[in-house]
Structure formats: C-alpha cells, structure tokens
C-alpha cells in the first residue's frame, strides 16, 4: 500500500440536529492545527432535525481541497443509510460503527476492516439525560478517530476551550466523552491506523473559512452600508455574517449607533428594490440570494441595467430547477444571471472559485458596479459558501478607497450648464451620474421606460436607439474592466475551461493527468462578459473540455453565444448530482475522450 499518512478521506454519516457538526469541526480543525492541509464538506438535508447528513473530511498533504471521489474511513452512525455508506467505502478501507446494536451480517464486506465501538452503551453508562447521551455519543466518535489517526488530545482540548470559552463546564463533559472513545480505541484496536495524521507545517499563513463569511467580510471592507435580503438557503449565512461583523465593528459603544442598515425584506423583489434605491442614493448596498431569489429579481435587474443603477447581488447557487435541492450545490444559474430580465439585457457576473476570491471579488463587485453603473452578480455556490476551505490569509491594502465611478459632486455641478445623465462624454459608454440632495441642476429622472440620452421620456425610435447603442458600447468597455481569467499551462492542444468551485477539482485533475503524461492547459473564466484572453485560449486549442456543475452545459452555451469558438471543439464534462465535483470525475472524463479504454468508456465523457 502507498504511504497513506496525511492522504485520505473520512466520511461521517449521522442524523442532523444531533450535535455532530461540532464533533466534525473539531476533528477538521485539529488536523488543520497539526499543520496538515484539510478540507471539510457538509452534505446536509433541508431539514431541522432527524434526516441523514454526511460530513467529508479530506486530509491532503499535497493541499488538494476538492473531493477525492473515494472514502477511506467511513463512520457509519446512521442505520437508515448504513447499507449505502458501507457500499461507498473504498476497498481496503475502515468502517467504524456503533457496536451497541448488532450489525446486519448481510452488509459485511470481506475487503474492509470493521471497527466496532459501543458508543451508545459507553455514553449511557457515563452520562445522564437522553439529549446529553445523544450529544455525547456524537462527540465520542471524535475520540475514537483521534486515537485511530493519532491526533493530539491536548490540541483537541485547546480547541474545545476556545469553542466553549463562555461555558467551561462543557469542555469537561465533551473531553470526558472524547477520552472514553480514545481509550476504547487504544485498548481494542492497533492505533494508529496506517492512514493517520502526522504533524506538518503546511497550514501556516492559512485560515479555514467559508465563502459566505469571506464575502461578508469583503462587503464590510468595501464600505457597504445598506444590506437588504430575504432569507434563503444557502445565502443566509452571508447576511448573518455581515450583520455579525457590523455588530462587532460598526457599533458605537457609547451611543449604540449603528453605521449600517440591515433590512430583512418582505421578499426578494423588495430586497433588490432596496438595494437599487440605496445605491441610486449613493450608499454601497448589496443583497444575497439563491436561484429562486434570482428568478424573482429579474424585473428589477432589467431596470438597473437600463436605468444604469449600480447594485451588488451575491447568488449562492443551489440545486435547481425550481425549489430543487436547497442544501445541495450546483452551478446552475449561469444563464439566468448573465441574461436576467426581459429585453436586451446582459449583466456583469463574477465567478469566485474559493472563499479568498469571495472576499476580494466582493470588494471588486462594488467598485465595478459603481464604475460601470450596472448590477454586478457574484456567483458563488453552496460548496464555496457553506463549507470551510483552507485559504491563504486574506490581505488588505490600507490605501484602498471605494471607487464611486463617474459621480459629479457639487463643485463640478456648479461648473456645468446643464446635467445630461445618459450622454457619453468620454467615449467609453459610461455616463455621469449625480446623487439626490446635492443641487437642483443635477436632478434627473430615473426610469425604466424609454428615455433619451438626457433622461427624458421618449417613444422616439432614434432617441431610444441612441441610448441602447451606447449601452452596447459600455458593454465593450466592461469586457476590458472585469477580472481576467486564470490560465494554467500553455502549448498543449487540449484545454479545460471551467469556472467557480470546479477549480479545486480541476487543479488536482491536472496534476494527475500531467503525472500520467497527458498535457492539458486550463482556463478558468472569472467574469462575464468574456474578454480577449478567453477568446485567445479558445482559439488556441484543438479540443476543449468544458467542466461545469449543471446538466445543460450553461458555460458552454455562454461561450458559444459570446465568443467565436467553434462548437465542435467543445466537449462537456457535466456534474450535476448536487455534490461537489471530484477530481476523479474529471480525470476519467478527459481520459475517456482522449484515450478510450475499457476502464474509461467514452460515453461517460459525454454524459
């Protein structure tokens, strides 16, 4: 067997609402504190309590943060999903289960090692109260894993101390449960297992953070003051985090005055309306939502495009269509966001690939929205937004000041004869705007109805077209101003094109493919519209795999609609199960196309 130290995946199958989240975070963080790169992904139900939930921890000395596509240790604590959990375990893997109850003999597999621990029995003997016993059972397995993986108990105690800083009695009870599991494992099994954790120094200068928290932090640093939203999974935690940061950082301790407005709207229609109202009136304002909210916001997005009102919208994508699977991930809103609303509309979209990009792109989104006077949609997803990712420390340049774009202040207004809202003075398609309350000369009428370049109502064809054509010139300018793509590799005739959270799996897949002698270049688009570099990459490759997490190849559609690429060159690798794409899926998809074999049949690639 290969060296499996610091290179394996644990999957924990439990029932939601029973306290397993804290045990899982504890395990992940203790590995992170040991200096070993780690990733944790939560596959949870759209439910409060009682349905199956899984947590995957990938330990990767090489720093891969995508799903590996295989499970080495399965902690199977949910009888309801036991059969499929056992089935998912890789050959040679370890199955940990609660031996308090008999295990169905039918579910045995000869190729795995079974480790039974009487978790419930031990906790029933040592703790009182039904709820406490359940909670402790679910922390006890962390102790078992600590022994099996050779995790440092003192480190775990330290983490518990931080978590329960205000309730020290909980540190002791949790530690007691962990010790029970730890001791049992040490007595009954040969610890540590061959796949274990050995301290490294690869996590210094890194944090573990989820994308929603990072995006919220970006909004704070960008100087956003008005946040309006309607609760929807998986975007809610972004707004919660923004509120939390503001409550800590923007409240005057003496007076209680809050330097932000946080408005829970009556629905998404109102949330985006509030954002437009506030942005139009000179405040940096944003909302966060998910697919269904984007559908509802369409009408206002069209108005914002046409009337040229800045707005920042975070779309934390989840599985569609319709209500879909609210707690599963997908990249399914690419088309809906790019062309939201009726008539000729196109919107700036940013595609962060990880939490650190959520932070920086949140800042960029506000600057772009104001510079370009148009909505900017930041398309994150549930995988980035709600899972903890290992990221390099976020950095901030104190020289940063918000770029409000072309806004005329009082002095400039006094100098002009007449304010003309939609006239292209600079030839870049971007007009000048003014804020209410400054000077009567600067007043103008914002409307979604036909308007002239002077902002007045019109039904005249020529006047209408002047504005529409200027908006198209602005779109050309936008192409040059949005974040550039990331290109990895050059010279191969095969390329991968992708975006967003598929990135981590692709980068791992590239390493595997290159290791096998298959040279593949990689282009990650970071924004819509696509600029010249995207065009160049598409032109330079004979065969292009478009990797994305939706059924209908939406990125491929956008590429064929908005670039000169030949459709025949594009092969889709589509992953839309609701779980994050794994590197294995991509490797197999690429190999099936370029080296078809029995192991990698060609039709998989065309799925």
């Amino acid at each position: 067997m290969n060296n499996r130290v610091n290179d394996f995946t644990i999957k924990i199958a439990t029932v939601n609402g029973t306290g397993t989240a804290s045990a899982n975070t504890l395990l992940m963080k203790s590995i992170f504190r040991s200096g070993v790169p780690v990733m944790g992904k939560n596959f949870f139900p759209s439910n409060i309590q009682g349905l199956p939930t899984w947590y995957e921890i990938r330990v990767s000395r090489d720093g891969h943060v995508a799903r590996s596509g295989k499970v080495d240790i399965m902690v199977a604590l949910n009888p309801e999903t036991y059969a499929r959990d056992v089935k998912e375990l890789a050959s040679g893997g370890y199955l940990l289960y609660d031996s308090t109850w008999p295990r169905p003999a039918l579910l045995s597999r000869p190729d795995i090692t079974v480790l039974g621990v009487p978790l419930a029995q031990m906790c029933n003997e040592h703790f009182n109260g039904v709820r406490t016993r359940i909670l402790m059972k679910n922390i006890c397995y962390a102790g078992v894993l600590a022994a099996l993986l050779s995790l440092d108990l003192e480190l775990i105690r330290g983490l518990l101390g931080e978590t329960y800083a205000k309730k020290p009695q909980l540190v002791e009870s949790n530690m007691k449960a962990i010790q029970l599991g730890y001791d049992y494992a040490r007595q009954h099994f040969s610890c540590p297992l061959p796949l274990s954790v050995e301290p490294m120094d690869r996590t210094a200068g890194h944090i573990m953070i989820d994308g929603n928290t990072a995006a919220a932090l970006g909004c704070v640093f960008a100087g956003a003051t008005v946040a309006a939203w309607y609760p929807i999974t998986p975007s809610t935690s972004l707004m919660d985090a923004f509120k939390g940061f503001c409550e800590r950082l923007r409240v005057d301790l003496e007076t209680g005055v809050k330097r932000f407005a946080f408005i829970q709207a009556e629905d998404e229609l109102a949330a985006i309306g509030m954002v437009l109202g506030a942005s139009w009136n000179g405040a940096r304002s944003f909302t966060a939502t998910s697919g269904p909210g984007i559908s509802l916001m369409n009408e206002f997005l069209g108005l914002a495009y046409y009337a040229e009102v800045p707005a920042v919208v975070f779309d934390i994508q989840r599985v569609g269509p319709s209500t879909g699977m609210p707690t599963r991930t997908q990249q399914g809103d690419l088309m809906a966001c790019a062309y939201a609303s009726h008539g000729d509309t196109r919107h700036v979209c940013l595609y962060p690939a990880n939490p650190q990009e959520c932070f920086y792109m949140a800042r960029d989104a506000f600057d772009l929205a104001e510079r370009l006077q148009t909505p900017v949609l930041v398309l994150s997803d549930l995988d980035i937004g709600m899972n903890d990712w290992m990221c390099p420390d976020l950095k901030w340049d104190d020289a940063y000041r918000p770029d409000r774009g072309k806004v005329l202040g009082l002095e400039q207004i006094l100098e002009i004869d007449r304010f003309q809202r939609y006239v292209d003075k600079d030839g870049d398609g971007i007009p000048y705007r003014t804020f209410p309350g400054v000077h009567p000369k600067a007043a103008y009428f914002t409307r979604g109805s036909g308007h002239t370049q002077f902002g007045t109502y019109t039904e005249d064809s020529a006047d209408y077209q002047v504005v529409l054509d200027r908006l198209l010139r602005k779109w050309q300018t936008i192409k040059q101003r949005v974040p550039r793509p990331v290109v990895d590799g050059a010279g191969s005739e095969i390329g991968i094109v992708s975006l967003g959270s598929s990135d981590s799996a692709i980068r791992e897949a590239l390493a595997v493919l290159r290791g096998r002698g298959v040279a593949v270049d990689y282009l990650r688009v970071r924004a819509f519209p696509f600029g010249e570099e995207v065009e160049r990459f598409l032109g330079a490759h004979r065969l292009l795999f478009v990797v994305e997490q939706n059924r209908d190849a939406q990125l491929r559609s956008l590429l064929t609609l908005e670039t000169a690429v030949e459709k025949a060159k594009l092969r889709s690798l589509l992953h839309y199960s609701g779980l994050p794409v794994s590197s294995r899926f991509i490797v197999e998809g690429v190999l099936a196309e370029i080296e078809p074999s029995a192991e990698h049949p060609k039709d998989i690639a065309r799925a």
Partner: protein
Amino acid sequence: MTFIAKPKVSHPSLPRNALGFTRRDYEGALSTLCAGCGHDSITAAIVEACWGLSLEPQNLVKLSGIGCSSKTTAYFVSGGHGFNSVHGRMPSIATGANAANRRLSYIGVSGDGDTLSIGLGQFCHAIRRNLDMLYLIENNGVYGLTKGQFSASADIGTRAKKGDTNLQPPIDPVLLALDLGATFVARGFSGDKRQLVPLIEAGLRHRGFALIDVLSPCVTFNDHEGSTKSYAYTREHHERTVLADFVPREREITVEYEPGEAREVALHDGSRIVLRKLETDYDPTDRAAAAAKVQQRMSEGEHLTGLIYLDARGERPEFHQVSATPAEPLNSLPYEVLSPGSRGLAKILERYR
C-alpha cells in the same frame, strides 16, 4: 402624448416663498394625462404644498411605480431627483433610498392598481417599517393605461364604462393602513384643494409613514353614472371629518378657533397641525375609533375625508430610529469609519485558525 417643452418664464409679480422661489419653481414637465384628470389637480396641490413649505427642490425625492399616477412625479419639482421604478415596487426603492440618506424628504406617488394589487405587499411592509415618507395614492378605481379594467379599490356594484359590474369587494387603503399601524392616515379628494394642500404639507413634515389616499376621478374610464369614483359621486359623497391646518414652525397661528373645535399637534420639527373637528364625537388620535368610523361611513356609501388618524404622541419609532442609524446619512459616512483596515483584518482572521 406631448413633446412640447414647457416654457420656464414666470410673471415677476408672482409671490415668492422664504427661499425666494415662486410656485413655478416647483413645477415639472408638462403633464401628458387626459384633460380634466384628477391627478393633475393633485400635482398642483403638491406644487402648492412644496412651495408653501419652502422646500429646497433638491431635497425632495420623488418615487413612483407604474401607471397614470406614477407618471406624475415628472410633473412637479423638476429640481428634485425622481425614480420611476417598476410596477408596485416603489416602496422598496423608497426604503433603500431612505436608508441611504435620511435627511431628504421622500414622496411616493402611486395608484390604486400599483398599491392595492401588484404592490400590496410592499405597501404593507413600508407601513410596518414606519418608513419616513409621504405615500400618496391617486385612487380612481380603474386601470387607465390598459383602458378601463376595475382595480382592487372599485366598490361592489360599481359599473365600468363598457357596462360590466364589479362583484369583488374593495380593498380600502385607509383601513389597511390603520390596521397595519400607520402613523398618519388621511383621505382627500382631488377636487378639494383647500383640504388637500395642508394634508400634503403635514404629511411631508410628519416623521414616519404618512398615507394620503386621494380620490381622483378618471375622466376617461370612470366618470360615468354608476361609478362610485366619478366626480359627481365623489363630490356628493365625500364627507370631511377633520380639517387639518398645517402651520410651519416659522409661522404664527393667526386663525381664531372656536373653543373645543381645534386641537393642536406638534410635529418633530416644530411645525404644528391644527385639527379642526367637524364632528364633535370624532377623535383622530384614536386608531380603533377612526377605523370604526371609516368602516361605518363606507357601508353607507360615503367617503370619509380629512386627517383620519394621527399618532399624535409619536409613539411608534420610524425606520431609522428602530435601526439605530447615525444622524449623518449612511451614504456620506467616511470610509475610514466603515473599514477595520489591515490591522482589524489580522485580528478577525485569528478566529479562523
């Protein structure tokens, strides 16, 4: 539709307000509504009120949705920014705009379709938040731009121009606003400028959500016999309850009132409203009694008008008070007080290790 520009010439003898402006300075573009439209009278009343209050034109923000009524924000105070949003969604634009800058005056002009059908939800929630704005409904019971369909404010039994009879009960914005806790609720009639102008003045100065439902007959689609929103019917059945005289803080009360007839209410900025009750048993500060009275008169086919309810003691805080936002508008806070900077970031990151 007219494309004729309005001449900007005014007679030198026109009276001037404290800022030296004449009424002409508070006008807007030429109206494109039908001749005789009630909405134009309301526009004139708004001009009069803004002039009377000596409002700085740039400090008035005009908001609207879609419909005949919503067009009118272009027809007054051209020195103030206007935002003609989408159908039924003006309250959300108003909420965001107000959140960004609390120092300006916000007037929203809407219609019965815009408010009571497509925009009912946003209307209710703006009231619920006690957003500091004047919300004016130009209520004619009919959809004009789409040519004569009943709106949600049409009374049961009212007849359309083409002969249909309305069978659905109306939604009354005044009753709804009272129920939702609005702090200033009034009803006017476009044909009664004397009553309407002080209501608009008081509504603009009121801190919190002020609703004025203005009956505003549609001369083209709803001014015939059998309609309960025609000029003739409204003249006959609009019943003044409480006359509100608005007295700006700069002015003395000069009118003599009979003892017991008048009651003075001070507004937050020092202005006063003098309420003159036309019925001795009516108390415009009693929400439940006001609602009961409106309902009773409605069942008799009468439109109760005047200042129907006022939260005279200012019991309900408005949106910014609830949000604890600073006195300085959020849109002008310096960046330095909003960003924790690189040192702040380093401290924050410690929690994620």
